[in-house]
């Protein structure tokens, strides 16, 4: 049996969580203490098996009223994939107009997420 301490990152409460687990072939969670909500518990289970994160970045836009369109992943991606996804984002260039929610890169680096725009960029020519 193993005790692990985590900080839940789902919401700003940032609950301190203590987990009791059995590490075998498959990690088994015996008890979760400290989560204030169920979302947090789900996250803890996920975190212990396959940690997931969202990331945000920017992509250069041509002909727009902003130089960059800010973007984010629309679903969490595996922690270990972050730099692969960033490498794809870094290569991308787009042209205005762009609207919030536009999918700019579908499924980067083979992940189950899309890179979507988080700002409107108008065409200025």
């Amino acid at each position: 049996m193993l005790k692990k301490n985590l900080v839940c990152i789902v919401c700003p409460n940032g609950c301190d969580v203590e987990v009791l687990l059995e590490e075998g072939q498959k990690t088994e969670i015996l008890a979760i203490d400290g989560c204030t909500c169920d979302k947090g518990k789900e996250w803890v289970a996920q975190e212990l098996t396959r940690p997931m994160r969202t990331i945000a970045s920017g992509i250069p836009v041509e002909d727009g009223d902003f130089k960059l369109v800010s973007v984010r992943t629309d679903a969490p991606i595996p922690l270990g994939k972050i730099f692969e996804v960033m490498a794809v984002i870094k290569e991308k260039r787009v042209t205005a107009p762009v609207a919030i929610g536009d999918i700019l890169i579908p499924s980067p680096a083979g992940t189950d997420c899309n890179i979507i725009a988080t700002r409107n960029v108008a065409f200025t020519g």
Partner: protein
Amino acid sequence: MQTIERDLVIIGGGPAGLAAAVSARKNGLDDILLIERDRILGGILNQCIHDGFGLHTFKQALTGPEYAQRFIDEFNRLGIDALLDTIVLSLDSNRTLTVSSKKGFIRIMARAVILAMGCRERTAGAISLPGTRPSGVYTAGAAQNFVNLQNIMIGKHVVILGSGDIGLIMARRMTLEGVKVEAVFELLPTPSGLARNVRQCLDDYGIPLFLSTSVFELHGKDRLTGVTVARVDDRFQMIPETRRLVPCDTLLLSVGLIPENELSLSAGVRLEPATSGASVDDRFMTNVPGVFSCGNVLHVHDLVDHVSEEAGLVGRCAVRYLKGEPAPEEAFIPVVPKADIRYVLPQTISGKEDVTISLRVTRPMRNAAVLVTDRDRKVARKKLVRLHPAEMIRIKVKAKDIETAEKLEVSVQC
């Protein structure tokens, strides 16, 4: 010089100004003018491209620009007037403003004013870093502007002073861009940013956070070449034996925010030392009649959701004031911070209405309760698992419990 008259002028088009405007319109006020010095609405949120906004309001982890856009869309749908690229240069106690833009320099006489100017960052000067004055020293917010809005990278090898949220967010942002972030140094024994940001911005990327440690000197005549760091004792004095040189070409300062109250002061608004923001009653009115304050200019918030909520309330209060109902009360009940409380807000209340008291604690604590009392009588109590100076705590007080109150005292009960 052109002079115009308006019912309600809102200074600042960040989330506070936007929510106040939307709420004032929804409460039936026609004549509203919002003034924003930037070319776009949204305030500081425009450069906060990370997610984590709106979990309370929209039950969704939005980024800053997305969160702002929802309010901007509503603001526009309601057809509220805004002057963009326009700065308010002065405000006096009669609520007369001077306002400047490319279109002209004009005077505006307002029947009510809502202050929503946000805050600015503390600088190296304000905290007086010894050493040379090389290039490569930025506040974290300025760095965020360059990286996220201007596509400019500020350096290659970064040290961050202060564990405020903006610094933590920038540590991750720059790491993702391939910049080496050496470490974050924090003078206090606890991080000043949110625990989740320490986790997901530093721990995830193996960036060390050194507590009770600070930067004591800058090096490099031209561009920064390094900083001297050292641990401090419990009186924040440097421990000389622990001094070491950390090479870097960039230093980000994330040492706190100060409400931007220059205009408030010029209007004669009284400020609270503990918040550096105005002292307000439960209608968020300052000591200057008709001048209200909300958002980061009132007290620094960690959550934009709270800003929007507070500002919504202030919009409504301003409309009530303009409609002349009910007349401002003379006898206000003071609310005072006691044991382990750094500040409370509002600082005075009428006792006639339910009120939410916002507060911050002085130090991290666990399993404690926030207690509101009136002459030793319990008025409200809120139990919390974790109390942290970085997180604002809010506690509701019912009007029926405070009708006869003389003074409310807020404290932490362990």
